[in-house]
């Protein structure tokens, strides 16, 4: 999978976990963090390589989530993407989200994914904390696979 160099302002990398998958994600702001987490999750599942560039028209889905904190928004948003992938076979790119006052709004544009290498069962809250490190927001998300 893609592993951006650490000096980049936003990115993700897989980190070891005995049984499941864990992803370290970083970005300058909360919207960027959720967008990177989404890209990282798609990469973990190996969805990209089946991306059908010829599929038209693109399909759009509206997502609106409210939560008590950013961690809950992160888990909820990734859960939405898992649902659309499993149930409607939809893969979104590009991903842009707007977050204001713990409310997330996103209009997602996607095309059908024809397959994926691996399945993620769920996004967990395990040791999940979004922390500010210098000028970046950083989080580690653990997935149940």
């Amino acid at each position, binding site marked *: 999978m893609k592993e951006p160099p650490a000096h980049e302002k936003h990115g993700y990398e*897989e980190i070891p976990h*005995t049984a499941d*998958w864990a992803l370290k994600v970083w970005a300058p702001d909360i919207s960027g963090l959720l967008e990177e987490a989404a890209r990282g999750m798609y990469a973990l599942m190996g969805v990209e390589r089946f991306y059908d560039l010829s599929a038209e028209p693109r399909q759009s889905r509206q997502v609106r989530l409210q939560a*008590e904190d950013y961690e809950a928004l992160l888990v909820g948003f990734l859960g939405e993407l898992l649902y659309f992938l*499993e149930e409607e076979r939809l893969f979104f790119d590009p991903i842009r989200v707007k977050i204001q006052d713990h409310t997330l709004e996103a209009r997602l544009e996607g095309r059908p994914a024809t397959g994926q*290498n691996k*399945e993620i069962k769920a996004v*967990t809250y*395990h040791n999940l904390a979004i922390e500010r490190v210098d000028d970046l927001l950083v989080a580690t998300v653990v997935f149940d696979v």
Partner: protein
Amino acid sequence: MDLKAFRRVSDYEWEIPQTYRHDMLAPVRIFATRRLLEAALDDRSVEQAINAATLPGLAGPVVVMPDVHQGYGFPIGGVAATCFPEGVISPGAIGYDINCGVRLLASSIELEAVENLLPDLATALDHYCPSGVGTKGSLRLTDPDLDQVCRMGSRWALKHGQAFPEDLDRTEENGELAGADPAVVSPRAKERGRSQLGTLGSGNHFIEVDVVEQVFAPSAAQAMGLVAGCLAIQIHCGSRGFGHQICTDYVQSFQGALQRYGIRVPDRELVCAPMDSPEGKNYLAAMRSAANYAFANRQILAHAARQAVEQVLAGKVSNWHFRQVYDIAHNMGKVESHVVEGKKVKVCVHRKGATRAFGPGSPGLPAEYQSTGQPVLVPGSMGTSSWVLVGTQESMERSWGSSCHGAGRVMSRSQAKKEVRGEQLRRDLEADGIVVRAGSLPGLAEEAPQAYKDVDVVVETVVGAGIARKVARLRPVAVIKG
């Protein structure tokens, strides 16, 4: 954390006292050899068990099995019993794959008689039992059908001609947990559930054809229909996207419950609510719906597996029938009666990566298992032995009627993929006489035997500790994976 924190109870049992950390509400009891315990300290599994010991309303020690490994929130291989109904229930302590479990079927087909037909049998099983990432089954349930599956579990499959009555007799809770209520399951979970019944999924789920290699307890093996040298079939899977979504929904909605009930947990994945609260009651009813879905799922897969067997072996051997040995959950929350300090009390036993292991004479066991104890099915890692054990009186007294569920991972999936190539692994397995049908070679590599503990050592530990007894060892001859 080092070994000094543990009190050695025996060669196979250790304890972390409640005083080890200020927020613990009960001790942690670990079944392990010294070597397995040292290995467990390499990841966060023991820390996760200590975190589990902070759940409000615990009725006694948190128990940890020798196949333990780090999970999310609660360790895989952990058992926690909370007082019913005032104690808490925690969705994360049961897991996303609600009622993931194992079913074992046995036959009197001698391996020698059908060895040349194994490739055809593996191909037929792969064809009849849908597996793989994102795979949907041939069933498309209507809303009323799905509601019936949630309430009836395996009995729904029986009603639709996909079970024998004795299959249900030989399933934990007869494949039908009481108290399920599909009304508290989200529309999204139902959407995922409608198309996935009768599918295996991917990851570590599998169907395996085994040969009974060695019998240790002849009378128990006879009661189970296990004959040395004859074939058996194992099916390992759970409640698919239906259960994953139910757990996801309730972990999310329980986040607010912590504050409402003044509960503090050291990890948000351990969120919980009292079982007598509206939140707790709803989760119990939803979780039981997923449990029944999983029982029906394994029943339908067993029916499909029998059709595959019939296609390949009918007319080639005189008796090609596979009878059910048992079907057992290893991710589940169950309200059971246990004896605590001499008194019989009702508790909710959370088992996550742990198998119920009721001893002889326990309620709910079919007549033929009353004297042997309940069959405990312990699949090994791919290509290695699996075990059939039975529960004991000791398991009732020391482990909330529970035992181990498998080998337990020691290597991350990414590391396994780096160290093992799927194609090479398939060649190695085939060189050992194991037929392989795999949907994904990288997926196969992640499940390589090197990524797991030695299941034989895990079994020796639970047997040494007295919480299970050996009945038979199985050796794989064909593996089907998504």
